[in-house]
């Protein structure tokens, strides 16, 4: 190493040059440079910077402090801090409101900042992330239903590299089966998070190695890397390099590397990654076939090329390799950094994100953090300005002794720094105390260790400094402007305009609070609605078992009988897909001569294969006709439609109608034997679509699941089912889950959002109330004399109370008026993502307005009550 390749961040050098004694600083900075150079290559990205920050800060100790000449400025500064401290001590109540309000604001906004920046940082940790793109297949076969897939025909990747010099390289990943089974010390395991790729993978994707390294990991075929977590889970230890994994189907595979657990902000998630494990001919044919599908392909674009230029060349490329098919199938590119945030319309990508909307939450949480912080600082400014009246004399005295305006301003800014500094300390404690809970709530995993804490401290510090500066400046300007003579007389021009401003700010805060309360109510009502909604079948206590082997499929009837014989199992159904559970339900087109639609009109529909046991298991109801009565082999072309399908096809008399069902290139004719009442078979984001229920042995689907209706002891049923399963499936352990738990996963994003909203609502209420409380105290204190006189003249408690609280009540009322339309718009937007949703209704709006009003009233009434009940003598004898 003759030249330094990694330059540490500049701020460390500047800070230490300022802080440390001259005779020490050179060696210190030298050591830090060397340290950073050493670790920057080991830990890419922010980790090295975090450690660096930690070490820089470790030098900030008195021992290294540069001795400075004692100047007058310095002692004045010390005096400012002293005065600031005294003014805090003198009014502990105000100070506490200020500091706690600010601390909560800072902590929450820092939390939101961390959250949002993490969401935005997805897939940015690869050194080449700006050049990596994912290939998207666009399927335009149906003009008004254009679909996008995150997979493509396998040979496209290599062909692109071959044809276009700007495509520097490509990586393909595949998942040949849903799961890979393997054997460790005679015990069978299976893993679903697995991919097969090839030796270029680690050239483009930078994942950290714990053992082994990126250069050699995939140097030879039949090798694999495993993540730390999976290693621990399957082997109970981590140093596995050289171990051989006995896989089912691919034989022995050598472990060549162990990866540090994948970063949370990676869209690529896997436990095991294999390199070229299948040497068979079928596989080679698959890779070269322009007819097959299913390769997740990423390309690396040359540094100075533009992805739009490449996209423009794609029509010609398609023409060249796919001929006329290129008219309806085309290629698009998606930057790897967009995958996490903007894939809600792209199906079948790695760790599919279809339908998951992320960016809207970024706006919501970003603005939430911003507003709460804004209000906390506004409250500070408000209270500081209000308090000025009480400090008028101090300002007057300082001015007449000769303090320049700049010095006075300096004093108030210093005060604001002291208050913010205290708030900052508390905010730090809050943030680190709250993070573990937030992780659980928002399903994030922000590390709570030393280097990451340093990273979080940066936004926290920046936020605190900005607040200190901004919120110190306004009161400073305002207070230092006063004329000395006026202030000594006790008159501070508080001014009509600033009173109006203050009222406006209160209104503004309550608008946000009411919107937050409203959203929280609407979200939790909607989530309740979802979990209580009648789906049209009974989803309780349904145990779903996957069919993972050909052997099971062949003997399913025998296995089903054995499952049904288990005590505590009421019914067993066999099906190709389970309603409400699986995203990719087969899609077909149907048309019929019996239909009243124009002759050639076809209708899109979903298709699932059910056996005769499904009706009893799921307890859905028939509208007319009959259900499958036995699993006899001649039933294969019989079908049952749901009501939506009957409506879509416009069948007058559905029973006995013949329907032709087209799937891919092939088709079969089905005869309708019954119509089932509509039930929800997809998440409640979607409305009930047309559905064809085919027989278990219909030509368009394959049976994949057993579903057991359990009435007895769940644990013993699972045990018994597993021993039945193992008799038929010799390769994989039983894979099972409960349908109602699986259903909840459809609404995870909303549930998470609901929790964060609740937190935001509580905090905005807290901040708004602290602000209101401070302001009310101030107003009441100023009106002390007025109250005293009124009391002496015979005003009753009730009258005084109304006098004090009416102006605040008016402000809250205005806030309700403004908040209602905003809240209506926001909640409607959110609800529109659900096909089945509640109608918030006037009641909800009134309720949230009332909650805000009651909270506001309670906040003021404590102060008002004390003022009303005080002895008028106390306030009047003041002079």
């Amino acid at each position, binding site marked *: 190493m003759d*030249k330094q390749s990694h330059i540490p961040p500049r701020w460390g050098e500047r800070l230490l040059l300022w802080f440390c004694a001259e005779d020490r600083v050179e060696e*210190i900075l*030298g*050591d830090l440079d060397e340290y950073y150079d*050493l670790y920057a290559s080991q830990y890419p990205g922010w980790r090295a910077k975090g450690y660096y920050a930690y070490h820089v800060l*470790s030098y*900030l*100790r008195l021992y290294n402090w540069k001795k400075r000449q004692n100047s007058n400025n310095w002692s004045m500064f010390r005096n400012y801090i002293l005065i600031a401290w005294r003014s805090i001590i003198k009014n502990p109540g105000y100070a506490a409101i200020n500091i706690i309000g600010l601390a909560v604001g800072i902590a929450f906004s820092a939390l939101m900042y961390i959250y949002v920046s993490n969401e935005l940082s997805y897939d940015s940790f690869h050194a080449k992330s700006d050049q990596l793109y994912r290939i998207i297949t666009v399927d335009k076969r149906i003009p008004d239903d254009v679909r996008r897939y995150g997979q493509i025909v396998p040979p496209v990747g290599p062909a692109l590299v071959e044809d276009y010099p700007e495509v520097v390289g490509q990586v393909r990943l595949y998942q040949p089966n849903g799961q890979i089974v393997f054997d460790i010390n005679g015990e069978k395991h299976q893993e679903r998070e697995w991919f097969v790729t090839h030796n270029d993978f680690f050239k483009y994707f930078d994942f950290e190695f714990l053992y082994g390294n990126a250069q050699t990991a995939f140097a030879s075929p039949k090798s694999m890397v495993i993540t730390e977590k999976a290693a621990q889970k399957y082997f109970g230890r981590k140093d596995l390099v050289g171990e051989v994994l006995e896989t089912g189907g691919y034989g022995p595979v050598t472990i060549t590397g162990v990866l540090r657990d994948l970063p949370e902000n990676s869209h690529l998630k896997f436990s095991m990654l294999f390199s070229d494990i299948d040497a068979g001919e079928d596989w080679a044919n698959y890779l070269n076939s322009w007819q097959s599908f299913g390769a997740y392909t990423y390309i690396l674009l040359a540094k100075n090329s533009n992805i739009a230029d490449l996209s423009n060349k794609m029509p010609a490329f398609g023409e060249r390799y796919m001929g006329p098919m290129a008219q309806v199938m085309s290629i698009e590119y998606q930057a790897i950094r967009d995958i996490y945030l903007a894939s809600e319309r792209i199906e079948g990508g790695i760790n599919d994100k279809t339908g998951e909307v992320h960016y809207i939450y970024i706006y919501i949480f970003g603005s939430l953090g911003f507003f709460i912080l804004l209000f906390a600082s506004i409250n500070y400014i408000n209270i500081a300005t209000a308090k000025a009246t009480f400090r008028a004399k101090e300002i007057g005295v300082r001015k007449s002794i000769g303090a320049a305006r700049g010095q006075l301003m300096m004093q108030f800014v210093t005060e604001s720094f002291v208050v913010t500094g205290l708030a900052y300390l508390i905010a730090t404690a809050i943030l680190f105390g709250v993070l573990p809970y937030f992780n659980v709530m928002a399903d994030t995993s922000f590390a709570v260790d030393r280097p990451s804490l340093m990273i979080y401290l940066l936004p926290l510090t920046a936020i605190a400094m900005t607040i200190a500066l901004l919120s110190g400046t306004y009161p400073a300007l305002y207070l230092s402007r006063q004329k000395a003579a006026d202030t000594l007389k006790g008159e501070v021009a508080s001014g009509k305009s600033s009173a109006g401003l203050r009222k406006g700010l209160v209104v503004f805060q309550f608008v946000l609070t009411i919107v937050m309360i409203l959203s929280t109510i609407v979200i939790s009502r909607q989530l309740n609605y979802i979990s209580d909604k009648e789906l049209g079948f009974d989803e309780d206590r349904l145990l779903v078992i996957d069919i993972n082997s050909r052997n099971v499929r062949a003997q399913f009837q025998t296995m089903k009988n054995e499952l049904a014989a288990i005590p505590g199992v009421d019914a067993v159904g066999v099906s190709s897909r389970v309603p409400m559970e699986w995203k990719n339900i087969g899609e077909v087109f149907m048309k019929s001569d019996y239909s009243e639609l124009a002759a050639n009109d076809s209708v899109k529909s979903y298709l699932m294969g059910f056996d005769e046991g499904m009706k009893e298991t799921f307890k859905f109801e028939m509208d007319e006709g009959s259900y499958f009565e036995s699993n006899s082999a001649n039933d294969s072309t019989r079908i049952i439609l749901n009501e939506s399908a009957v409506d879509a096809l416009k069948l007058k008399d559905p029973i006995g109608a013949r329907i032709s069902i087209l799937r891919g290139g092939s088709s079969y004719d089905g005869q309708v034997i019954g119509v089932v009442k509509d039930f929800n078979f997809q998440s409640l984001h979607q409305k009930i679509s047309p559905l064809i229920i085919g027989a278990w042995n219909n030509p368009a689907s394959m049976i994949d699941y057993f579903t057991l209706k359990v009435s007895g002891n769940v644990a013993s049923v699972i045990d018994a089912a597993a021993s039945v399963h193992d008799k038929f499936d010799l390769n994989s352990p039983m894979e099972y889950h409960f349908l109602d738990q699986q259903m909840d996963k459809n609404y995870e994003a909303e549930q998470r959002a609901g929790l964060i909203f609740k937190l935001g609502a509580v905090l905005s209420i807290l901040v708004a109330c602290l602000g209101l409380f401070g302001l009310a105290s101030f107003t009441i204190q100023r009106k002390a004399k007025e109250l005293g006189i009124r009391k002496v003249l015979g005003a009753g408690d009730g009258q005084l109370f109304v006098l004090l609280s009416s102006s605040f009540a008016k402000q809250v009322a205005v806030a309700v008026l403004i908040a209602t339309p905003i809240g209506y718009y926001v909640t409607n937007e959110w609800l529109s993502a659900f096909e089945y949703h509640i109608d918030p209704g006037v009641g909800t709006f009134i309720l949230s307005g009332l909650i805000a009003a009651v909270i506001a009233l309670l906040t003021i009434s404590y102060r008002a009550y004390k003022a009303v009940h005080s002895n008028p003598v106390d306030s009047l004898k003041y002079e």
Partner: protein
Amino acid sequence: MKGRNLGEFEELLMLMVANLYPEAYGVAIREELKKSASRTVAMGAVHVALSRLEEKGYLKSALAEATHERGGRRKRLFSITAAGKKAVQDNMELRNQLWSTVPELTWKNIQFG
């Protein structure tokens, strides 16, 4: 004399300086601590401890020639003084002596688990 005793961390540092001679400076010492003693410490802590040992007279230091590494900044190389050697030796002898006079019975009566 109380002030002349070496703390555990100080003793460790002295031995590191002795081991790394003539290349004993901040980062090198910290990395060695991490490698051979599995102790990760902040660099600031290493520096301050080294300076304190120098003030006590157990270590001496000199700035090395500037090189192209480290942004052209010089290293401060530490080496052990006679007093330092004596202090480390005293520590070791005290320890050896205490070890040698532990009665056999002590070890026999240790309960494992």
